[in-house]
């Protein structure tokens, strides 16, 4: 899932200063799970923005909370058409993709991002989310026992370990376990330590940072 965190209320309030009627658009997929832009957060932000305006003074603000199943699909965004016609601006509580889909679906609408999109990962404890994938475009988890060194090693080493770990912890950030130790433990458990002898060649970063946006086409379903 994609993980994001809210932008400060003061930033949003300032951005919205010229408007009197706005929508706050949440997303019930990743953003609901990382507690950044689900139904609850959407309602809470709408309330907080209205109260901020009342306290700070000026023209009153009406903030309409709306949520869609997925902000990254036009079919769901279309359902908002009628309501969004009536507002002057919108705050998107979707990830960076959601914001851009909203902009594309409603070109006449001024959209402000309500979140900072951080990482692709998952929850590791209640209230904690961690990065697990760098979207490198060429998965090598079969060589590393299912532990991604690009993401979970602070140095992103393809051929580790670096030798700097202490008591199984990373020298860069002692809160993080050494990814290469995790890899070694996993490989040993399966009797596959020989995989460590494999020297990984330089990675093809064009797959991760191509010219312009990356694209996936499935010809078998494309129309």
């Amino acid at each position, binding site marked *: 899932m994609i993980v994001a965190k809210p932008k400060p209320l*003061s930033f949003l309030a300032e951005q919205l200063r010229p408007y009197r009627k706005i929508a706050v658009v949440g997303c019930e997929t990743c953003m609901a799970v990382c507690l950044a832009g689900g139904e609850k957060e959407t309602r*809470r932000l709408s309330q*907080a923005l209205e*109260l*901020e305006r009342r*306290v700070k003074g000026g023209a009153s603000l009406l903030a309409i909370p709306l949520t869609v199943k997925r902000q990254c699909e036009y079919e769901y965004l279309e359902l908002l058409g009628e309501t969004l016609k009536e507002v002057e601006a919108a705050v998107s509580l979707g990830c960076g993709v959601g914001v851009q889909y909203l902009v594309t679906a409603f070109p006449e609408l001024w959209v402000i991002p309500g979140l900072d999109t951080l990482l692709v990962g998952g929850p590791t404890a209640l209230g904690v989310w961690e990065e697990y994938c760098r979207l490198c475009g060429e998965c090598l988890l079969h060589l590393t026992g299912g532990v991604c060194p690009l993401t979970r090693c602070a140095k992103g080493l393809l051929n580790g370990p670096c030798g700097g770990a202490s008591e199984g912890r990373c020298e860069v950030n002692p809160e993080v376990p050494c990814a290469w130790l995790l890899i070694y433990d996993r490989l040993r458990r399966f009797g596959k330590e020989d995989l460590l002898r494999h020297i990984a060649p330089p990675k093809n970063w064009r797959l991760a940072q191509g010219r312009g946006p990356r694209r996936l086409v499935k010809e078998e379903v494309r129309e």
Partner: protein
Amino acid sequence: MKGFKPTIVAFCCHYCAYAAADLAGSLRLEYPSSIRIVEVPCSGRVEEELILHAFAEGADGVLVAGCLEGDCHFQKGNVRARKRVEYLRQLLTDIGLEPERLAMYNLSSAMGKRFAEIAREMTEKVAGLGPSPLRKGVEEA
């Protein structure tokens, strides 16, 4: 501010603070009439939205009262409530309200005297801050 009588919404847990308020009544203890009690099944029931709603409707202060830590009928409801209150105090600051307008208290059902004390303490604190700026809009409406 002289003569200002605040309105304070008190979300009281059924298992402790609400019973404590009841006991305060039975003991004929006096506490300020500024306190408006809302009974909840657990302080953990009190969501952020509910507290913001109380402020939006013109409350000068809000208090959440749950069981003593470790004694929650639902294990962790009061701990969760405390965290939410802490988060909301920051949000209130961002909104432009004094964070002191919101407080979390822990007490048991046997603490009728403490309930009266809390009511007085909170009333004095909020009275010192003056009326909530949100109150005006509500009164005009």
